[in-house]
């Protein structure tokens, strides 16, 4: 039974949230916060694969998110709204429901390919030097989009609402909320399956000792390639969702500030802990919202909390343990695979 309780409760939870949102019990604002929470969970868990499990220091996660956001947006805009590139929309709005996941996948795939920019140099460099490369990757993506006039350049890109409206035209339920919840679930599930698989065990092996891992027959280059591409691909999925929540993207929403935010979430939660990354993404999003009335003081309070946390619990909220490791009794009730 406990094999399935968690899965069942997750799906029941998603269903309940959707129903509550549909009935208006959860207002638009709370929905938007929940959606951003989901996006942040996807981002922090995916960065955790590289920064936590693999022990590298990637600080350009925003760049991959940006690639995903733009590719997904361009696909849905070409398909569903009038645009200056192709003119009339390619598909009728009733196709939105089928095309949207494909667009999300296309965004994720493009971001994974962009991840190669970091993955290939990582064969020969590591540590601080690789960190600089990831930083450069972030800048490359943003400057490239700034100079691409066809997708708006620095003015940003919009028209994605047509796809969302198309879906709502079929069945009027909060589709974006549903997509974000499923996207979050899918990403965490995928990462969990990957790191606990035989293949994925190579990732923490690289973190501990790359040479020893190589001797023990781990193909480190292949592992790095997979880890970076998976991590950036999932970030691309987050970007695609993010773009459709807002209905507008601007390259400067994904600059170094965004990457830093994601890094903060990873280190707050604890490196190498999926439940930690999830928990910290939730906590971080809620803190940002709750402390909004403090205005400028918010940016005193949040960093201060971070310093205090690092002082008294330097390994992050969860350390490198999962929730079920800290509370073994929980294992009786759930198992998440």
């Amino acid at each position, binding site marked *: 039974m406990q094999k399935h309780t968690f899965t069942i409760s997750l799906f029941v939870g998603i269903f309940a949230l959707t129903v509550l949102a549909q009935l208006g019990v959860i*207002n*638009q*604002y*709370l929905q*938007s*916060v929940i959606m*951003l929470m989901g996006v942040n969970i996807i981002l922090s868990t995916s960065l955790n694969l590289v920064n936590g499990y693999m022990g590298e220091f990637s600080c350009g996660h925003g760049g991959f998110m940006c690639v995903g956001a733009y590719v997904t947006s361009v696909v849905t805009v070409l398909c569903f709204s009038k645009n200056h590139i192709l003119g009339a929309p390619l598909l009728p709005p009733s196709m939105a429901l089928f095309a949207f996941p494909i667009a999300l996948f296309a965004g994720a795939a493009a971001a994974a390919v962009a991840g190669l920019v970091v993955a290939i140099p990582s064969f020969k460099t590591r540590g601080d030097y690789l960190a600089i490369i990831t930083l450069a990757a972030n800048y490359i993506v*943003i*400057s490239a989009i*700034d*100079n691409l006039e066809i997708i708006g*350049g*620095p*003015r*940003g890109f*919009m028209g994605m*609402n047509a796809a969302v409206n198309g879906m709502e035209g079929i069945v009027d339920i909060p589709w974006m909320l549903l997509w974000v919840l499923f996207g979050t679930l899918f990403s965490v599930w995928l990462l969990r399956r990957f790191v606990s698989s035989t293949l994925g065990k190579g990732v923490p092996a690289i973190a501990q000792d790359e040479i020893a891992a190589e001797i023990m027959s781990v193909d480190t280059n292949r592992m790095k390639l997979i880890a970076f591409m998976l991590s950036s691909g999932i970030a691309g999925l987050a970007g695609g969702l*993010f773009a459709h*929540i*807002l*209905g*507008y*993207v*601007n*390259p*400067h*929403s994904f600059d170094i*500030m965004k990457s830093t935010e994601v890094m903060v979430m990873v280190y707050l939660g604890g490196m190498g802990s999926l439940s930690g990354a999830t*928990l910290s993404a*939730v*906590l971080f999003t*809620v*803190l*940002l*919202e*709750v402390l*909004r009335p403090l*205005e*400028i003081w*918010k*940016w005193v309070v949040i960093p201060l909390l971070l310093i205090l946390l690092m002082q*008294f*619990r330097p390994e992050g*909220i969860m350390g490198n343990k999962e929730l079920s490791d*800290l509370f073994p009794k929980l294992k009786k009730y759930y198992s998440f695979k």
Partner: protein
Amino acid sequence: MKKTTMKLLVAFLALALGAFALMGCGKDSDTIKIGFNLELTGDIPKVGEASKFAAEMLKEDINSKGGLEVGGKKYKVEFVYQDNEAKAESAVNAALKLITQDNVVAIIGPNSSKQAIPAGGACNDNQTPMVSPWSTNPDTTKDRPWVFRAAFLDPFQGPVAANFAAKQFGAKTSAVLFDIANDYSKGLAEIFKAEWEKKSGAGTVVAFESHGTKDQDFSAQLTKIVAANPDFIFVPDNYNQVALIVKQARDLGYKGPFMGSDAWGSAELMTLCGKECIGQFFSTHYAAAGAQGATKEFIDRYNAKYKYVPDDVAALTWDATRLVLQAIQEAGKVEKDIKAERKLVRDALANIKEFAGITGTMKFAGTGDPNKCAVVVQISPEGKFEFKESVCPQ
């Protein structure tokens, strides 16, 4: 020990979530709530601050007189400020929070287009009137019946600068230096170039150079510009970069004049630029020095209260807020139901044909974008922005 820490953390998390769920309750029936979605932290905190100061001044004005009179009854006004951190996603959240938690009648802001475009979408979808004081990107109000603005658009400002410079400097050729990563700067530069070449023939923009947002050194671009020997340089850039550009151009031996845009018009410009900027011209929303009537009164009071001359954002926020308040008054009554009240205010806003603001008279032709005059100011030897000429759309 570990367990206690964990328990504490869990308790903290629960508390935070609880506080979050409880927020935003209660509504007073004799007050009218207006929301402000401002850039109080992040890249451009001065912009948000100026907006907030102007709004606070207006609120004191109204409430000290007993409130806003609507349909024979006086209502106190309450302004709710939400910080959007100068981020797009945060601006949407702030707008949604104002709409659903704070139950505001209308929203003023965001100022910058990067935030105003997505927030405008959220307001339009949720049928809440929004007025952006400062956003110049056409997308902010395009196809959005619930979104308005108080500033003129870039497609108007570009030709103003081109025409004025041609007349003032007797110029035949020009050069442009702009920020490629800033949509405002890039858009304006392109509009200016198109207008200038239409007037003076192809190839008369002898240099069209760009730089990045955080650049400090412009010597490569400026060397090219100086070598091309233009009659003047158009710099549609933020004030902090203007200061550097003007100084570096003089160091490279450029003697001619500069022409700027409304982003020059910050109280900080003269502190950063000093005597090098004296005598230069730029187009903007209003001229602080030599202002008269209501504009002068606003400037003097703001200056007395906050100890600096208000820049265009403050003045535009003042106008945007007064525009909303006038719409509320013209609606003639206050509905108890917030949705009905928002509809009333939107319709009243759309019905305003002409509005006398301190940044000039605005005429609305049913698009949410005002038709208003721009002014060209010259920087005086005392560092004041002096009125030179007013240019109105035909």
